[in-house]
Every structure is written in structure tokens, then in C-alpha cells.
């Protein structure tokens, strides 16, 4: 057991620190204004072009073929510099890598990793949330294409996406988990209409809603085989639940550092309970950083697509919501008086974490039955 940097890790840390000192774009830690995503996209390409993104992914697709623990160093240095978190798309890379053909990987991974292609994920529907397998968007074969009809919702940043990782029903007459297939569908086409939703913190450019009306996707864009969509989706969501894949530790650490700066800059104007909540947010964030160290070290034995991500998702959710509560507490009455208060927006945004990527209740069902082995009723 060793938490120290290897020489190669120390070298990356040094290079990152120098680069970050010059290139921190000074964005908020999470989505609290309408410019967030566009500027995060610029940050993605800047990080990638400097050689600091996609550290653990194959060199053939623009990655650096390093062990996954190098991402810990990236997150730590980003947090220390107060820079924005790394782009959260590792779960799509995992899904395409695990299930896509060589042709699919060659076609899509490089643009996804480099940030030249923007992606969204079309899973949830108005009537298929936690019960994802009941989704009703259809994909019907039409010559060399499939025709897509349906309604996707909570599709983050769909309005600026070039591609959507879409889950649709190809076989209506088989049990619900068995009739699904996954596609990479181009988003710039006439059969697609965007109707974004406004989130509770006022953001209007994140929460997508997409209507597919005879939209076309070439059959060769199917990821995995026909009817394998559920397996593909489960690989993706298992990694979408991992803070090590998402890089969220840097988000939380950045916010905690900002909160500490506020309360410790003028300590006597804050009550002991406010100081205590900030310290607790620090403890929670440290726990998650160290948990990610452990999970990514375990990947030295190979990537596991199993249910452990549900544990990580709950831990991450508790951290994000603890940080949100600390922000709210430090802001005090300002959060009740000013709808544009930044801490209020951080707090409100944190409430989504126990829903997105599978609700906390779904994670607990998975942990209870698949990890603890408790009987199902």
C-alpha cells in the first residue's frame, strides 16, 4: 500500500502544475450559469491538446495508455489550482470500448476523447426513469438506416451535442430488457427537435428534452448487437456512477476550498456551526478523494463493470450534498434573499445528484440485492 507518487506520476504532477498556473480559465465548479457548458467545452479541448486528458485510454484513440490512478493526480492538481473539473465522459468511453466493434471504436472514440465531437446520452424518457427498460422510443429498420421515433428527457446538453448515445427499442415483441439496441445517432438532422427544460437553480442550457420524429441513424452506427442495448446501457451506467470516472472530486474540492477561503478569511463573522459544516465538507471530500485512489488502484487488476459503482455513487452523492449544504450554511440569509446567490445555485444543483445516473433508491436496491445478497420480494 503506497499513496506516494511514482516517478512518472510525480513528473505528470509537475508538468500539470506548471501548465495549470497559466491556463486556468476560472470557471465555476459546477453548472451554475448558462455559459458553463460552452466554456467547459473549450476547457476540454485545451486540456486534451496539452496532453492532460484521456490519460488512461488507448493511445490509438488519443489517450495516453497510463494506469487509471494517474487521473487521481489530474483531479488533485486541478483542485489545487482551482481549475474546472475534467470533462465527465469516461462512462461513454467505457461503454463504446466494451461493446463497440473495432470500426465503431475507430470512428467515434478519438473525437469523443479529444472533445472535437460533443456527445449526449439518450436513455431516460418521460415514462421510463428508474424503470429504464420500459422505454418506448422505437428504432425501425428502413434500408441501410433505422428510423427513430420517441421522446428523450434529462438529456444533458443535448442542444449542443453532435452525437447522442441512444437507447431505443428494436424488437417490440420480446421481454422489455431484451428488445433494446444502442446507437450513435447524429444530432444535426431535421427529424430532431430540442426543447430544453429549466432546472431548479435557473439554468436553462443543461437539462435537455429531445423529440425524435423519423430521425435517421445508419444501421452501422449500432453499438453492440441488436437486442444487446440493455447490457450496453448497464456498462455505461455502472461507470457513470463512479466519481473516478467522472472526476467530480476536483469539483467538490474546489468548492470546499472556496468556502474555506470565505469563512477563514474573516473567521469571527461566522458561527462555530458554520465552521464545523465547512470542516465536515472537507472531511467528506477527502474521503471521496481517497476512495477514488482505492478504486482506481484496484483497476490495476483490470476494469470491473460490476455493481460496486452503486456504492461509489451513493458516497459521491452524500459528498456533493454535504458540500451543497455547507455552501448554503455559509451563505446564510443571502441564499434566502437573492435568487442569484452563487451558493444557493450550488446547493440547488446538488439536489440532482441523488437522481441523475439512477436515483439513490435504485442504487440501494442494487447494493442490497447484488452486493449484500439480500433476497428480493
Amino acid at each position, binding site marked *: *500500500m503506497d499513496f506516494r507518487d*511514482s516517478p512518472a*506520476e510525480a513528473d505528470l504532477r509537475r508538468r500539470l502544475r506548471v501548465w495549470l498556473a497559466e491556463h486556468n480559465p476560472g470557471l465555476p465548479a459546477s453548472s451554475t450559469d448558462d455559459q458553463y457548458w460552452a466554456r467547459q467545452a473549450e476547457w476540454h479541448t485545451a486540456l486534451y491538446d496539452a496532453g492532460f486528458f484521456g490519460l488512461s485510454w488507448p493511445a490509438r484513440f488519443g489517450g495516453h495508455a497510463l494506469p487509471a490512478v494517474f487521473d487521481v493526480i489530474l483531479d488533485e492538481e486541478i483542485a489545487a489550482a482551482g481549475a474546472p473539473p475534467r470533462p465527465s465522459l469516461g462512462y461513454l468511453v467505457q461503454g463504446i470500448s466494451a461493446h463497440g466493434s473495432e470500426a465503431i471504436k475507430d470512428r467515434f472514440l478519438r473525437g469523443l476523447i479529444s472533445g472535437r465531437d460533443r456527445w449526449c446520452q439518450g436513455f431516460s424518457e418521460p415514462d421510463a426513469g428508474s424503470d429504464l427498460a420500459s422505454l418506448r422510443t422505437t428504432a425501425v429498420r428502413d434500408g441501410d438506416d433505422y428510423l427513430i421515433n420517441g421522446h428523450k428527457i434529462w438529456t444533458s446538453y443535448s442542444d449542443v451535442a453532435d452525437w447522442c448515445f441512444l437507447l431505443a427499442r428494436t424488437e417490440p415483441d420480446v421481454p422489455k430488457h431484451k428488445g433494446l439496441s444502442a446507437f450513435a445517432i447524429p444530432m444535426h438532422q431535421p427529424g430532431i427537435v430540442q426543447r430544453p427544460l429549466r432546472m431548479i437553480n435557473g439554468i436553462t442550457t443543461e437539462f435537455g428534452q429531445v423529440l425524435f420524429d423519423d430521425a435517421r441513424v445508419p444501421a452501422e452506427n449500432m453499438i453492440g448487437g441488436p437486442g444487446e442495448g440493455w447490457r450496453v446501457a448497464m456498462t455505461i451506467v455502472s461507470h457513470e456512477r463512479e466519481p473516478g470516472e467522472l472526476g467530480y472530486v476536483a469539483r467538490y474540492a474546489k468548492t470546499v476550498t472556496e468556502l*474555506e477561503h470565505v469563512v477563514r478569511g474573516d473567521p469571527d463573522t461566522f458561527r462555530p456551526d458554520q465552521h464545523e459544516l465547512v470542516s465536515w465538507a*472537507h472531511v467528506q471530500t477527502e*474521503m471521496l478523494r481517497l476512495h477514488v485512489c482505492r478504486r482506481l488502484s484496484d483497476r490495476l*487488476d483490470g476494469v470491473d463493470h460490476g455493481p460496486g459503482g452503486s456504492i461509489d455513487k451513493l458516497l459521491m452523492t452524500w459528498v456533493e450534498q454535504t458540500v451543497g449544504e455547507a455552501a448554503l450554511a455559509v451563505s446564510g440569509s443571502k441564499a434566502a434573499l437573492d435568487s442569484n446567490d452563487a451558493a444557493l445555485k450550488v446547493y440547488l444543483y446538488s439536489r440532482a445528484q441523488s437522481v441523475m445516473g439512477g436515483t439513490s433508491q435504485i442504487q440501494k436496491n442494487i447494493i442490497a440485492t447484488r452486493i*449484500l445478497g*439480500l433476497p428480493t420480494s
Partner: protein
Amino acid sequence: MDTRDTPEQAELRRSARQLAGDLGPSTVADLDDLARRRRLGAAVREAGWLDLRGEGDDAPLASGVEAAIVADALGGAAADVPFAGPVLAADLARRAGVTDTGGAVVAFTSTLIDPAIVSDAVTCAPIYAVDSDDAINAAYVLIPEGSGYRLAAVRVDGGPDPTGGTDLTRTVRAIPAGSSAQRIADQRVVLTGDDLAAWTALGFALTSADLVGVMRGVVDLTVAYAAQRRQFGVPVGSFQAVQHLLADAQCLMEGSLSVALHASWAVDNLAPNDARSAGRVAKTYCARAARTVCETAVQVHGGIGNTWECMAHVYLRRALLSSQWFGDDRVQLRALGHERLRAAHGLS
């Protein structure tokens, strides 16, 4: 960076859990089985675990990681045997350049947060020897000298079964005011503030690891009960309301393990103040988590969980002592706040 156990650490983890499981108490009634308790004590001694932090070549025989692996295993079995007490005494003695004979623990003030400091040869308030047994009849206290400390020993009265303390598996023996403190003659090094910070880091690492073990043990116990106990014609563990409590408990245990591993590594690999801060972080998280997890265990056991015969309260009681020892979560949060405030203002 590679936080996985080395093969030797994995083997120690396996063998320590096996020994603790074989010889630790399976039922509350087992706690009265003195023959079993003696076998357990002898096995822990023979395994050499009490000497892990004793003098090796210029360093302790084993790192904080190995010591924490054993603490975790003993906590998991609610093993009624001294471990952290004598190990902390050996660590303190090694730092002072004292030959430790394995017959001591450390005395704490009544808050159990800090080691007892006495100003001269006689103690003036009750102090407490934590985690000893009949074979241990001395407790170290500190006597200030210049900017550092010298070690002295006070006598701990053994007696048959001294419990009456909250933890049914480990002792806290009161040492009355007016006890005489004998300076240790062969102390070669005056203990510095850094020595005490590094030693405190070990205290955080061992108590945190014990709490992780307690959580694992009590979750295992409770999951097994929920799978077997039937109501409405089905196991209670098939109800989501119960499943979600246990899922929360499992997550808290996993997060605690991650943070406790780091604290145990930090003992010998970070500067003393940084190791102590890492320990505070671990202790805060583990103490809060263990309280919730043990309360969950009592709840899921229902009426049985509120009876003396159920092991759940044995774990809860052990968690209460491990949480208080070296200071609980609120104490650590306050200390972390002060330390980070000083750091923010450029003080160290």
C-alpha cells in the same frame, strides 16, 4: 500510487481475520468464557502483534498499515483482547528510546482525548489506562521537561475482571489521584511535539481501523439476521425499507475503509502534523459512520436488537469507546478547522 495490499499485507489481513473470528466471541455469553479469552490473548501475543510498533532497525518492526490491518480484524470480531493499548505504549516507548517490556499501556485524561500529563511525581486527578488486561500492570504518563516530555509509569491495578466500562470487550481502568509516577530510568530521547503528533496519528489510525472492523462485523451480523428473520411470510431483508438501511451501512463502511487506509499509511509516510491531520479526517468520518451503522444494526434486529443477548450492542459499545478515544468527530472537526485556519493564515 497503488493502495492495494501488498501480498504480505493481504496475508496478514486474511490470517488476522481468521484468528479473530476463530477465537473472538460469537455470542454475548462467550464474553464470560475466560478460557476462550485467555486463548485469544495468548494467540495475539504469540502472533507478535503487540510488538508491531516496537523497536526494529531504526524504525518500528511494522508500519502503521500492518498495525491497522490487525486492529480492523480484531474490531470486526469484537475481539476481547488488548491490542491498540499496548501497541500505542510500545510506539511511544520506541520514540522515547525506552525498552518496552510489553507490560504497559498509556494513561489518558478523563476526556480520553490526550495522554495524561503530570507535573511531578504524583498524579493529581484520576487518569485512565485504556485497553489493558491482567498481564499489563503499568501505564505511561508524560512529565514536561523543557519543550518536551519524559515518560513515567504509574501502576495499574489488575484485579480479576475490572469491567463496568461501556465497551464489553476492552477495559478502561481508572487510576486514582495521588498515584506515584516513576520516571523511566533508561529514556534516551526527550519526546518532542512532533513525536506526540506522529504518535497521535497512530492513535487515530488504530481507532479508525477498529471502527471499520466494527462496521464490517456488525453489517455481516445484521445482513445474516435480515436474510433469516421472517415476517409477513418473507425474510425482513426482502423489504426495501430494510434493504436501504443496510445499503447505507455498507456504503459508510466502504468509505470509512478508504479514509482509514490512508490514515494508517500516513503514520510513517507523512510529516507528523500532516499524518495527524490525515488521522483526524479518518477519525471524523469513521466515528460518524460507525455510530449510524451500529444504530442501524440495532434497528434491523428489532426487539432482539435491544436485548443484552444480541451482539449488536457489543459492537455499538465498542464503537463508542473507539470514537471517544483520541477525541470524537466533533472534537476532530474543531481541531481541523483550527489547523486549516492557521494554515490559511500562513502559520504552521
